[in-house]
């Protein structure tokens, strides 16, 4: 049995492999939420069936920050939705996998995201429908903290508590960096968790890289109140030179950096040779 730590490391390796073959991608954002998605899919949180992606009683995960999709692709492949080899063709003309995820085309992808500020309202619709149908389905959403600068997020932030959607958990990947700089330098968002509390959410603040804290937060429920998890994360987590450095929002490592990345993520000599051939 793989531990969650091993699973997360494996997902980070797959994220790099995808970027390597695709020639680019939002790795920093994907590494930042890797531990969250690992617990969600592989520590008995999300109920799903890779063999039957449309299983009517499933929980749903909606990646609103769609640019972090390499983490989702890696997790879905590991969960068995499709062969991992397919991910070596991400971004190619014949591939169904691109730089942002598309529903209908990729099994396990519940929403086509990419433009920021869309996933929350879509998830509210799914959570509301689930309530109407008296299903036990729980809806999980990951938002970026920079994404929370979008006005539509705050329309959704008002809606979900109004509709008493306690079957919904929103995780904000709070890595405090956005494309061009530190979040707080660009837009003042503090006090971030208090804003959500004021909007009526059950707010839980955690270390977004602590597996036990993540699991506990993802399983937290409060009657008639949706849960908002502020996950304190590090953008680029796991690769030393990427951590907390804004430029790694979208960039590929040079040869020297690649050696460090291989070491940090634990690529074996054989895996390195395979990747570089």
């Amino acid at each position: 049995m793989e531990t969650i730590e091993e699973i997360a490391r494996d997902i980070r390796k797959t994220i790099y492999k995808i970027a390597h073959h695709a020639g680019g991608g939002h790795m920093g954002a994907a590494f930042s939420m890797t531990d969250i998605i690992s617990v969600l899919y592989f520590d008995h949180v999300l109920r799903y069936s890779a063999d039957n992606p449309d299983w009517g009683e499933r929980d749903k995960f909606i990646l609103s920050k769609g640019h972090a999709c390499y983490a989702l692709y890696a997790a879905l492949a590991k969960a068995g939705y499709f062969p991992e080899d397919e991910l070596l063709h991400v971004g190619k003309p014949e591939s169904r996998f691109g730089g942002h995820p598309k529903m209908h085309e990729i099994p396990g992808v519940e929403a086509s995201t990419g433009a920021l500020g869309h996933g929350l309202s879509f998830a509210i619709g799914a959570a509301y429908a689930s309530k109407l149908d008296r299903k036990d389905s729980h809806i999980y959403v990951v938002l970026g903290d920079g994404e929370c600068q979008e006005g539509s997020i705050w329309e959704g932030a008002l809606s979900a508590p109004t509709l008493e959607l306690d079957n919904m958990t929103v995780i904000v990947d709070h890595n405090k960096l956005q494309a061009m700089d530190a979040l707080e330098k660009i837009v003042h968002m503090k006090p971030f968790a208090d804003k959500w509390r004021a909007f009526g959410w059950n707010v839980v603040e955690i270390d977004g890289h602590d597996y036990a804290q993540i699991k506990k937060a993802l399983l937290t429920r409060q009657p008639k109140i949706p849960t908002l998890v502020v996950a304190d994360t590090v953008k680029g987590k796991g690769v030393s030179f990427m951590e907390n450095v804004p430029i790694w929002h979208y960039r590929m490592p040079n040869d020297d950096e690649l050696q460090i990345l291989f070491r940090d993520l634990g690529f074996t000599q054989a895996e390195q040779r395979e990747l570089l051939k």
Partner: protein
Amino acid sequence: MRTAYLDTLYGLAQKDKRVHALISDNGAIVYDRYRRDLPGQYLNLGISEANMIGMAAGMASCGKIPFAYTIGAFLAYRAYEFIRNDVCLQNQNVKIVGTGAGQVYSALGPTHHSTEDLGGLRALPNLTILCPASPLEVRKATAAAYEQEGPVYLRLGTNREPEIYEGDYAFQIGKSVTLREGKDITLIGTGSILKDVLDIAEMLENDGIHTRVLNIHTIKPIDKEAVIKAAEETGKIITVEDHNIVGGLGSAVEEVLAESGLNVTFGRYGLSDFSRGYGTYEIIKQHNGIGVDNIYFGAKQILE
């Protein structure tokens, strides 16, 4: 039109629990019976059009059939990206229902006018666009929108439109209705302005000009066959719409004609700017160049 829509949707919702009336704080009173009889199928989301459309797409992904309703201007402009990405790109079974077509909210001014909605929405893949002309046609279009799987934009006026049909007729998405036969010129209209178009045709008839009138209630997909037939048989076409001349009915017909290779005398009547002035709908139409007289004299010029 609004009553016709609400009556029809009420009936559909009674029969089919998947049907949901979502509104963005508009038309609250007229939804009273929904609140009373169909509480689980009615939801006022407050003033948040983008959230309403995104949520409607999420509901549709779970098998619901949401009819998301508010003033068309707020849907087509404010929520455009949500219509594009959440509804059309994901091909969700959402019905987007905009009221106040064109300048019908005349005195409220251009912020409340849907005069560029068709131009923006017509470019969206997977979206069917319906602009019914009368209360009876609204009933048929609402039912057709429900029957058709996939995204639909339904463009409604207010509640003052007269009936233009004398009896029942066949309504089919993508098939225009010939309201009047004629060989000299064809007037093509969409939406409630067809009442004016029929009046203009009558005036022309009195001048001895046999005027065909086509009701293109489906802006997308447009009835190419009827447009080409009109071009071949009458040689002269004028489009009339309460919308900017860019992107709406006139543009759609023009595209068909340009690709047909036919030599046609063609004119477009619609707005070429934001709506100016205030007053009743009739006054505003006249003031902005799409009154009955404007179009009648324009048609006469083309015929000369």
